[in-house]
């Protein structure tokens, strides 16, 4: 059975591209677009890995990640954070919130696949 990834991102075309990319790599991909209900989606899907955007409608990815880390079921779930910002402080904020790794948009597809594979093997 393939591993599941939950992609929490609000840009429809990015969702399609990443979903296609990860599906072709053997992942079962679920998607969610709303920051306010993202935790419900995490609880429902119990994914093996989460790809989480920082800028989401309703709630920031940092806040969502902090709650993911507080929940016993998901405290160890690998999380890859995506952001449109590339400043050092954003990287620090992501890692402080509990991200396993951090990628800045725009990214190369190969880079994304490498990061996801590395987290899955971790």
């Amino acid at each position, binding site marked *: 059975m393939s591993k599941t990834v939950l992609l929490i991102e609000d*840009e429809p*075309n*990015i969702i*399609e*591209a*990443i979903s*296609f*990319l990860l599906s*072709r790599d053997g992942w079962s991909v679920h998607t969610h677009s709303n920051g306010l209900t993202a935790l419900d989606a995490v609880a429902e899907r119990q994914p093996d890995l989460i790809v989480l955007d920082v*800028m989401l409608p309703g709630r920031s990815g940092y806040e969502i990640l902090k709650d993911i880390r507080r929940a016993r079921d998901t405290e160890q779930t690998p999380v890859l954070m995506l952001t*449109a*910002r590339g400043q050092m*402080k954003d990287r620090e904020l992501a890692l402080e919130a509990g991200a396993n790794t951090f990628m800045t*948009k*725009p*990214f*190369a*597809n190969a880079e*994304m696949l490498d990061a996801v594979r590395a987290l899955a093997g971790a």
Partner: protein
Amino acid sequence: MRGHASAGTRIRERRIAKGLRQATLAAEIGISASYLNLIEHNRRRIGGKLLQALAQRLEVESSLLSEGAEQAVVARLSSVAERFGEEGGAADATEFATRFPAWANLVIRAARRVDDLERSVETLTDRLTHDPHLAATLHEVLSTVTSIRATASILQDTKEIEPEWRDRFHRNINEDAARLTDGAEALVGFLDGVDDAQSEVSSPQEEFTNFLSAYGWHFPAIEAQRSGAADSYLKGAPQLSSSSAQAIAERYLACYEDDARKMPLVQFQQAMQVQGGDPLKLAQEFSVDTAGVLRRIATLPDSTAGLIVCDASGTLVLRKPVEGFPVPRFGASCPLWPLFQALSRPMTTLSAQLNLPTRSGVGDSHFHTYATAQPVLSLGYGREPLLEATMLILPQDGPDTSEPAFPVGPSCRVCPRDACAARREPSIMTSGF
């Protein structure tokens, strides 16, 4: 006023040198010719905005009119020397100004230019860092570029791709290209306005502030309690282009009207003289809250006082600027301001002397402040009311050694106080751009 006895003479000399008729100059600055005549014959004191207006029209530093060229040049040279960390003192400045008057004026003009440029840099940095519209546009552009890059790579790298996926990705790229065009145009529009740092307006709050500035923060028709006065100011105000700004201004003028009714202008000005400008005594005399008195002092005709109001979240909702006390247009300000301390001590009036770093970081500017927080909205039984804090900022000529002074800053990002315990982020003023 120092040197007032000859200020009128200087104005007269300057006017004649510029070839202006007395009546023409008077009309241009909005006073009667007879009043200007009295000023020019040193029979009326002059200062504040009127002096500024005359100086601007006569194309001369206001201090040159009020204090005389020599004193003003020496004082300004000393200030420039101090600012750039040069030792010298008044004797050197006097000698320099006397022996090389043209060079002395050049130094002063250059220092003024540095001031203007630093102010522009500060404003632009503030905007580029905190402007919500710029941040949103950049986010949109980066997201779109991400989508295009990821999709184009898939089309390029995937050898066998189903036709429906290929068509979908082509459509997505087409959509994203259109979005990218819009985003790029928005960015160009923003950057086109960057060279005019002062005029670019990007929020209802700024429109509102510009509206108040256009009237000098004083509304004579409301003071005179004319019927429909507030509406007459609001109607067609060119500064209030958005409905949000109009709503903010309407609320503000209603509050102004209330203050003016409770503290009529003439009585308030008389009481200011009697009470020495003490806000608590004034509040008692007029049976009003202290915040109202602070607002009233800041909006008197030609008042040089600054005023800042924040809501319970610390968001600044009113900014009346005062020279030497910069208030960020976006983002957070200095957490050490009494304005914010007042929020934790509602209904208490805080009085504090503050030192702010000068623009160059050499030396401090000195201010006395009064701050208070009071409820503005009840949230229901058993709930704390919503608070609003108000701070009056009074410029001082120098430090008042009879009371302690607290070092504060404008905002961490442009504050040179490296060792401040309240610092949130490094300063660009110390780490450089």
